[in-house]
């Protein structure tokens, strides 16, 4: 770097997280902490009523999440013309417009729908899939979560727009087993089935070998000399194909066009409501990673959703529903095979086994 360039460098202003209060709708600022109740007049719309009697109406819409600036400006135009110029984004990347006047709600919905955005995603809907970057930007992706999500939401659009489910359904996708998408009522995640393929020419230059050895959850990696070069080798009998070695050591390629499959997990629930938060459980694996539209994965998700919709009672999330009907019935209703791979053998896995005489016939 030249001296001149160095001089121009400005020191960052370390302000951290900005105050959101300045961007809040005035009615929300005025009634901050003074809300009394809310109602849900129709899918995609919430009304919150303050103790003061004032109301704030929210219209929620699904977008493509990866926004181009044109789309972002269209969303702003709608906000300026049909709302009050204030928005927020939900944790599942939906946009929300807040207005204080009920009469603005319908024109706002019309404007959003006219531009192709999908109003919905509230209460007992299938919410927008929370997802990761995939091939578009990630350095370790086994698939393109953005593409899976687009293809799947095309098929689930009516479930997003309506409130026909027994309770809300949160879907997630992740392009590797780190699972950035998080826990979901239904999660569609990459599951590798073969050990990493190692490029021994590159390992010693690219990877810090001891930390790669330390990353392996099953101690299957050890230092080795290969073709006269320091490298790493994998005990393939021990390897669980999790891909943990790939981020710190890119020459240990875990992604495989054929053998990186999709798996589906159900019953992950972040909420404390009715029961403690729960992790998702494996129900289907070996599903082809089949771009550009991944029809096999979508078909299984739809099967699970339709069984849930048919059989669950009001307010049961997917985990509550399976808790009531039991796993044998779940596999029966969804027509998914139960295999030896469903039985957990990781440490602490015995607590997931049935140690009782509770059996449904």
């Amino acid at each position, binding site marked *: 770097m030249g001296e001149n360039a160095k001089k121009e460098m400005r*020191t*960052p202003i370390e*302000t*951290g*997280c900005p105050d*959101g209060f300045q*961007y*809040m709708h005035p009615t*929300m600022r005025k009634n901050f902490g003074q*809300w009394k*109740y*809310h109602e849900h007049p129709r899918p995609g719309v919430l009304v*919150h009523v303050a103790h003061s009697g004032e109301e704030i109406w*929210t219209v929620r819409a699904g977008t*493509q999440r*990866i926004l*181009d*600036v*044109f*789309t*972002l*400006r269209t*969303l*702003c135009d709608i906000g300026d013309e049909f709302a009050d110029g204030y*928005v*927020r984004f939900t*944790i599942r*990347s939906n*946009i929300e417009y807040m207005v204080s006047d009920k009469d603005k709600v319908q024109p706002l919905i019309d404007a959003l729908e006219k531009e192709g*955005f*999908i109003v919905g995603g509230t209460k007992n809907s299938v919410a927008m899939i*929370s997802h990761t970057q995939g*091939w*578009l*930007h990630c*350095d*370790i992706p086994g698939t*393109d979560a953005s593409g899976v999500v*687009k293809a799947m939401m*095309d098929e689930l*659009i009516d479930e997003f727009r309506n409130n026909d489910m027994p309770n809300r359904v949160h879907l997630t996708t992740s392009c590797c087993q*780190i699972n950035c998408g998080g*826990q979901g009522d239904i999660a569609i995640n990459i599951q590798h089935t073969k050990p990493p393929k190692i490029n021994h020419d590159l390992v010693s230059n690219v990877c810090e070998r001891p930390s790669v050895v330390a*990353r392996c*959850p099953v101690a299957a990696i050890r230092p080795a000399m290969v073709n006269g070069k320091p490298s790493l080798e994998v005990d393939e009998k021990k390897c669980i194909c*999790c891909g*943990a070695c790939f981020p710190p050591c890119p020459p240990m390629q875990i992604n495989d*066009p054929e053998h990186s499959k999709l798996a589906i997990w159900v019953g992950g629930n*972040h909420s*404390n*409501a*009715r*029961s403690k*938060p729960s992790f998702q459980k494996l129900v289907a694996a070996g599903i082809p*990673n089949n771009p*550009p539209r991944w029809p096999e994965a979508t078909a299984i998700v739809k099967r699970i959703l339709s069984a849930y919709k048919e059989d669950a*009672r009001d*307010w049961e999330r997917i985990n509550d529903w399976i808790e009531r009907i039991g796993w044998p019935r779940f596999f029966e209703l969804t027509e998914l095979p139960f295999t030896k791979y469903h039985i957990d053998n990781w*440490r*602490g896995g015995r607590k997931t086994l049935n140690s009782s005489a509770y059996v449904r016939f």
Partner: protein
Amino acid sequence: MKKHDTPMIDELENGPWPSFISGIKRLRDTHPEKRINEMTNDLLGQLEHSYETRKGYWKGGTVSVYGYGGGIIPRFSEVGNVFPASKEFHTLRVQPPAGNFYSTSMLRQLADSWEKHGSGLVTFHGQTGNIMFIGSTTENTQHFFDEINDYGFDLGGAGPCVRTAMSCVGAGRCEMSNVNEHKAHRLLVNNFTDDVHRPALPYKFKFKVSGCPNDCMNSIERADMSVIGTWRDDIKVDQEEFKKYVEMKGRKYVIDNIVTRCPTNAISLNDDDSIQIDNQNCVKCMHCLNVVPKALQCGDDKGVTILIGGKRTLKIGDLMGTVIVPFMKLEKEEDWERLVEIAEETIDFWADNALEHERCGEMIERIGLVNFLEGVGIDVDPNMVANPRESSYVRTDDWDDEAVKWYEKADQREKDSA
């Protein structure tokens, strides 16, 4: 400019859901700036190549802005010779305003800055909670940051550091709010700006704040330190509203969907259709409040529950957070200072004792909760366990001393509440 053929990803322009591919094509085809047209054209080319070969072609590296060590996700293309205009395609992680609130004018300002320096692609928000400005060259990373930093935005975390935090809509709109979520969020994360910008911790550390136990921020599962609004007095009941609800939905519905769904059997329906709640046994599961928000409200003696150690799979398996503070008030200035102090002591102890690449929850799993609590100076409490120890493999030499401590604390609590 020759446009790449993209037959596979073109398939993602079909169907009713908004298409991100169509959005990228708009940048390629209609943006006035040639730099953006070429960058997005090559991005589409590389993405098509990934779809054909089912492989990713981005590699990490080292990119940051002057004065910081993190905040950027560096992406260099492995096939940059074929797709040169997008061969550097870094993401800037930028911290959103607490609660994810924006005015349209601020969004426009961000869009203007971004198209000046970047690809024109942006996500609100990534899974950690950052605004993701996707696609910038190494050089423009600095220019874009300088511009938005001047009007109040700062980078988030990337790498082994304190990460961008998250809070729910909270008191801004929700009647379930029990704490000023945005204040807690900003107080915590902004106390650690140095640890956000200069990665030097064992691994990532995330704060998430939810205003009630519905935990819309997924903090128990996804945050190393989870702060959840709660209350310890009675649920407030508007019996007239509740009776109206019973009249509208019927007694069977109310029994099946409220009474029997209470996880601690703390609810019964009276003969006159009013509701009776055994508040001492309410665990704040939120279900009944969610069903009848018009009739049931959180109590007035509000505060927070704090959990530590949530995380996903790598390396030892999924872990939920564990309660370390069952309840604390956040009213007086010293309460808020104590909240920050708990975070500081947790991060200090973890930074001193964790292995490389070990999350806080994994460290607790390895050393035991008691060693962690002693390290951060927090007393044991039965709210921290689902049940007491089941294994008899334990030395209890100092049982009498510990029992005395418990009774002394009980006396102290009695004095405090008197």
